[in-house]
């Protein structure tokens, strides 16, 4: 570089004196001015080369940079992420309490090379996946369920041999991975999934949630390998607490960073609730609905919605038609399955003094819209406190911090202080939920005699974006004591699996907020629930009580206002009367009878039952590793009911090879979209250069150019 600066500018320096001489010989009108100009242009030339030199430097340095570093670029310098475009199509049909969904993921390869697409995607937290088909052009290959390792082995083999293959694995109950090998250049391959889920019914309203993206999760623990650059790449490295961190952390990008038209979903729902539906609404999207008889067709107003938030659809029965009980029946492979729903009619006139602990997640993943929602949720919660209640506010990110040393009386002074504290909360840092749970569930401070009469309730406001869920459930299970845990899910794509299970272990309920304008209604419902009496010690006795009968959930938790009791049972014929009983807070008995022989026909109940059974088996694994018997039982259930589980995966593969031996295969990790309104913990590098060098360079070149013209002009027209 130094050579350039010195040698090149020297050439004009040599030439110019020559010119000078010739011109002065011709005798000009104003030689001094000209000489002066020439001198100036000479200096400008030297300066110019000083500034041109960096250009060369830039060119040579960009070529050298980055050897041995992982890049999301292929050899041609094209960004790999945009080579495979992804589009999805959801067709949901709801019948009664079960929603059945056909999900199509289309991978379009826009490059000139054969591709393998890897896509990590969310499904509803209670989804049971029971079917998979690979569609390539006209051909349809039906996927089979395999033991997970076997599926992986066959998939790898098919990929190496150039056969088209697709596999779908479960990473978490609500997080899955599709792998699609050998997508030919310019073609589209579709993976079709079938799954069903139970519709949530509470407070007289049905709710269905279709997640389309995930909030990047925080991975606690130390890195397993000793690479120092933990924060760098798009994929998290495995840690001691989350050994599969690299499997569940896709690169999260903004919508404008994916290829054109990629990451769009078309959605259509058919709701056949079995009763007249009066109103369909969605807090997350603008939807249009058309009625035909009892069925309602629902779809978002825009054809293709961006996959950056969960779609939530709610529908309510016509006034006066709210069901208080329902029974469904299905026969599958010679076995009877029954699903019962009972809504206890609780009155809300009793009110007990409470001790409320609000816990708010202020980790980096909450930054943006989420922290605003959370702040509003907390303010709302503070407003429900009565004069004889006690409360505390705890925030956590990498550290936990409590506003008061111990719960304080809810007087105006304390509440005002809490409000100020809440308004000042900011989101950054990690998500160390464990220490926050310790602080929240620790009830040593509640004073003996008077305090023990209080109901102790913990409201946990978070997006649940952590990778070590199982360890946290274990903690809740062990330390709960007499507290009750209520989770409030925040953001465009909260981890609903965490919300639901944490509330289940915490013997409370869960609520999700998806929109800042939608904060009040769900929270008012939640706080109304928390203030109302609870139905406890619930027992369900089915007619006959056959030995072969298996009911799930086997033990019914406490029921809050507006919440139904739902149980699914195998091995009972549909006859007799079902009896549900429980105890009200004042000690009196509550009882309801339900004739089973009027059961409506249901679909997919056996899968719902199997899924519940698998969940209950997997719960045993919380207190340590899962033993071989459980693993075998889960695998058997998965194979029998054709369900995807932690140990069984779907695989579809071609018989013949379609990729030539000389063609290479590149792997695309398809990113997910950053949930709407979220900033994520991934900080973007700021813009750190000014236009100054460019302006200086342009200015100098321009001035030199002008000087040259001036000289030329003087010479031509003396």
């Amino acid at each position, binding site marked *: 570089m130094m050579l350039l600066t010195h040698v090149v500018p020297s050439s004009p320096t040599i030439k110019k004196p020559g010119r000078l001489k010739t011109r002065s010989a011709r005798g000009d009108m104003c030689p001094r001015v000209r000489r002066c100009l020439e001198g100036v242009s000479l200096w400008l030339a030297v300066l110019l080369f000083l500034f041109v030199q960096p250009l060369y430097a830039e060119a040579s340095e960009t070529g050298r940079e980055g050897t041995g570093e992982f890049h999301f670029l292929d050899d041609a310098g094209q960004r790999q992420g945009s080579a495979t475009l992804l589009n999805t199509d959801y067709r949901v049909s709801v019948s009664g309490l079960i929603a059945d969904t056909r999900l199509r993921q289309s991978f379009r390869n826009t490059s000139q090379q054969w591709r393998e697409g890897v896509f990590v995607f969310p499904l509803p937290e209670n989804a049971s996946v029971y079917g998979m088909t690979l569609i390539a052009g006209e051909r349809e290959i039906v996927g089979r369920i395999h033991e997970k390792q076997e599926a992986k082995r066959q998939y790898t083999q098919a990929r190496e041999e150039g056969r088209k293959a697709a596999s779908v694995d479960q990473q978490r109950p609500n997080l899955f991975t599709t792998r699609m090998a050998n997508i030919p250049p310019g073609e589209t391959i579709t993976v079709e999934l079938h799954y069903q889920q139970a519709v949530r019914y509470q407070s007289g309203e049905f709710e269905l949630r279709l997640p389309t993206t995930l909030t990047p999760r925080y991975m606690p623990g130390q890195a397993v390998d000793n690479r120092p650059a933990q924060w760098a790449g798009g994929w998290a490295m495995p840690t001691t607490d989350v050994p599969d961190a690299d499997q569940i952390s896709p690169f999260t990008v903004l919508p404008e960073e994916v290829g054109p038209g990629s990451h769009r979903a078309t959605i259509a729902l058919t709701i056949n609730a079995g009763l007249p539906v009066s109103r369909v609404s969605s807090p997350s999207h603008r939807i249009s609905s058309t009625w035909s008889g009892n069925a309602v067709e629902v779809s978002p107003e825009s054809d293709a919605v961006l996959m950056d938030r969960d779609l939530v659809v709610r529908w309510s029965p016509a006034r006066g038609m709210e069901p208080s009980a329902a029974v469904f029946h299905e026969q599958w492979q010679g076995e009877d399955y029954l699903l019962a729903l009972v809504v206890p009619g609780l009155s809300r006139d009793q009110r007990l003094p409470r001790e409320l602990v609000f816990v708010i997640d202020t980790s980096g993943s909450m930054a943006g819209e989420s922290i605003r929602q959370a702040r509003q949720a907390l303010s709302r919660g503070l407003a429900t406190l009565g004069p004889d209640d006690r409360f505390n506010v705890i925030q956590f990110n990498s550290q936990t911090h409590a506003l008061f040393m111990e719960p304080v009386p809810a007087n105006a002074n304390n509440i005002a202080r809490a409000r100020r504290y809440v308004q000042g909360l900011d989101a950054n840092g990690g998500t160390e939920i464990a220490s926050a749970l310790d602080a929240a569930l620790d009830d040593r401070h509640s004073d003996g005699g008077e305090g023990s009469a209080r109901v102790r309730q913990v409201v946990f406001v978070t997006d649940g974006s952590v990778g070590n869920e199982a360890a946290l459930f274990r903690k809740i299970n062990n330390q709960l004591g007499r507290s009750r845990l209520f989770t409030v899910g925040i953001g465009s794509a909260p981890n609903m699996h965490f919300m639901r299970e944490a509330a289940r272990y915490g013997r409370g309920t869960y609520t999700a907020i998806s929109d800042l304008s939608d904060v009040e209604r769900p929270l008012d419902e939640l706080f109304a629930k928390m203030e109302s009496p609870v139905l406890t010690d619930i027992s369900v006795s089915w007619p006959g009580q056959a030995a072969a009968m298996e009911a799930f959930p086997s033990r019914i938790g406490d029921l809050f206002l507006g919440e139904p009791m739902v149980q699914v049972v195998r091995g009972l014929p549909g006859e007799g009367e079902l009896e549900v009983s429980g105890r009200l807070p004042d000690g009196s008995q509550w009882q309801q009878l339900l004739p089973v022989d009027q059961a409506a026909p249901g679909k997919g109940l056996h899968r719902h039952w199997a899924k519940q059974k698998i969940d209950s088996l997997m719960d045993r694994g919380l207190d340590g590793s899962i033993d071989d018997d459980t693993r075998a039982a889960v695998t058997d259930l998965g194979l029998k009911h054709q369900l995807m589980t932690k140990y069984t995966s779907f695989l579809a593969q071609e018989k013949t090879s379609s990729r030539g031996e000389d063609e290479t295969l590149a792997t695309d990790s398809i990113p997910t979209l950053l949930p709407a309104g979220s900033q994520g913990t991934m*900080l973007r590098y700021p813009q750190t250069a000014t236009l100054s060098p460019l302006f*200086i*360079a342009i200015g100098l070149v321009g001035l030199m150019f002008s000087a040259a013209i001036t000289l030329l002009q003087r010479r031509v027209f003396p």
Partner: protein
Amino acid sequence: MNRLILLLVTTFGTVLAVGLWIPLKAIAAQELLELAWAESQARQQQTRPWPWADTWPVARLTIPETGQSLIVLDGAHGESLAFGPGQVLGNDDRAGPVVIAGHRDTHFRGLQHLKTGSRVRLQSRDGDWRIFQVDRIRIVDSRHERIDTAKLPQNSLLLVTCYPFNGLENNGPLRYVVEATADSMVTAGEADNVGIGEAVAGT
């Protein structure tokens, strides 16, 4: 013709002046910020350098290698970076990692002289100095990498600027990242005794 030339000269002269104005402003602003920093240290509260500023000094960064002593402003938006390096991440109570970004053409031009093992010092508002040692210098492509704030060690400091240093492009993708870890802390009192504060401020 003469008019045309005059027009050209004025145009390019203006462009040159604008180009030179940016570094000039950067130098001049630091002088003003010194006052604001002294005031915020004296009063222990956020002090805006001029009434309409949307940022305020949060720290002082010194790089002995280049003899620079810079006042760091809050935030890394275009407005604050024009006057001084901006603190993207970090808080007053010195808990957690600190990320500071600066323009490669002005304040952070000197980063290219830092080497592994070099030291940089950061003074917070209460006058305490923290000394960081450079562990690693990396060049990253900002299109494909982000800073995962949750994964940064608690006692780390990142200095970010654009790369290459002589580049003309003002929105290039490459970033020069200096990663440093705190190895000691000197309180305000000690600093006076040892003379760090004076030595640094005098450079």
